[in-house]
């Protein structure tokens, strides 16, 4: 009697194990179909949470601010006012340079086409995802396609659209660890391949005598004035014939709330 029950249980456990393995294999082989079906359903459930979170984030003050000392707040306020005045001056200078750039391109017969940018809100920030990606609230319904470039503040390139749903899209960051991007560095457009190090940071290996300085801007290869970041540090040793150039995006990716997507393939 005992042996019969034990055999029966063992057979049931084996059947359960076989069923489980078959189910796992089916899920793994048809994973993209499974994720699109499951994801689509749960996205409908979770979208109100993201929208509410965005609304609360935009309409509430950081409560930790109440615990900051008055002196620190006054010092931070003065520093930000100085930074703002400097930035205003730089922006005026930039406007003149942009105007001159357009006039020169017009003379050469290379006028820029109108750029079709769409402003979208970030629903889920990069550090919340294992893949260092983030979700934006624009999708197929807004004409978004895979491969469209994503910018912060209009002209700082941060990533590209990796997958698109009806109302949302997932954006892959170029600065994600081990991702690569063709860039040009500095006034002499030194061509290089930048490798992402996460958090808006990149690393480039260049010959030691490459003419690069700290503060040089880094743009996307191809001649377009699309900024990726600025050189922060150059690491060079006498025994190494290469130097490591570290640069980072000039914006804080984890505090971004809005991005622009260029609807152009």
């Amino acid at each position: 009697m005992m042996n019969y029950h034990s055999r029966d249980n063992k057979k049931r456990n084996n059947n359960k194990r076989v069923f489980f393995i078959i189910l796992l294999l089916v899920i793994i082989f048809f994973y993209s179909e499974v994720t699109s079906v499951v994801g689509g359903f749960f996205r409908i459930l979770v979208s109100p949470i993201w929208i509410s979170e965005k609304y609360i984030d935009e309409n509430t003050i950081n409560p930790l601010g109440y615990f900051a000392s008055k002196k620190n707040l006054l010092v931070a306020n003065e520093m930000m006012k100085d930074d703002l005045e400097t930035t205003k001056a730089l922006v005026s200078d930039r406007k003149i340079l942009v105007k001159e750039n357009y006039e020169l391109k017009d003379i050469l017969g290379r006028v820029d086409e109108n750029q079709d940018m769409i402003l979208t809100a970030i629903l889920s920030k990069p550090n919340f995802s294992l893949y260092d990606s983030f979700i934006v609230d624009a999708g197929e319904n807004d004409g978004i396609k895979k491969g469209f470039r994503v910018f912060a503040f209009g002209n700082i390139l941060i990533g590209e659209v990796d997958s698109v749903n009806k109302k949302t899209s997932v954006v892959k960051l170029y600065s994600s660890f081990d991702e690569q991007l063709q860039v040009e560095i500095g006034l002499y457009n030194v061509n290089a391949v930048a490798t992402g190090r996460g958090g808006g940071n990149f690393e480039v290996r260049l010959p030691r005598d490459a003419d690069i300085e700290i503060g040089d801007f880094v743009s996307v290869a191809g001649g377009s004035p699309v900024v990726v970041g600025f050189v922060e540090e150059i690491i060079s040793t006498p025994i190494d014939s290469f130097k490591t150039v570290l640069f980072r995006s000039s914006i804080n990716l984890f505090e971004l709330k809005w991005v622009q997507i260029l609807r152009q393939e």
Partner: protein
Amino acid sequence: MGTDIKTRIILDIFILFSIAVFPWWFSLILIIVGIFKFNDFYEAFVFGIIMDSFFGVQRKFFMNFECISFLFVLISFFFVTQIKKRLRIY
């Protein structure tokens, strides 16, 4: 039995909420807690699939696989189940 089911449902809802709101490692910790606390916590695989469907992108670091969360849950499920068999309290 009834309290167990209620706790399990509350945990499931909280894990789904945490996938949307909290960092990925917090959600994975909750999933591992669920696997530890309950027998046959198969909904953990569904949560792995949800995380991949929401955030999955092809990345060189992950060899262009978009099933990293699911694999992580699968490995955790296997190891935690084996550990539970060897613990006296289970």
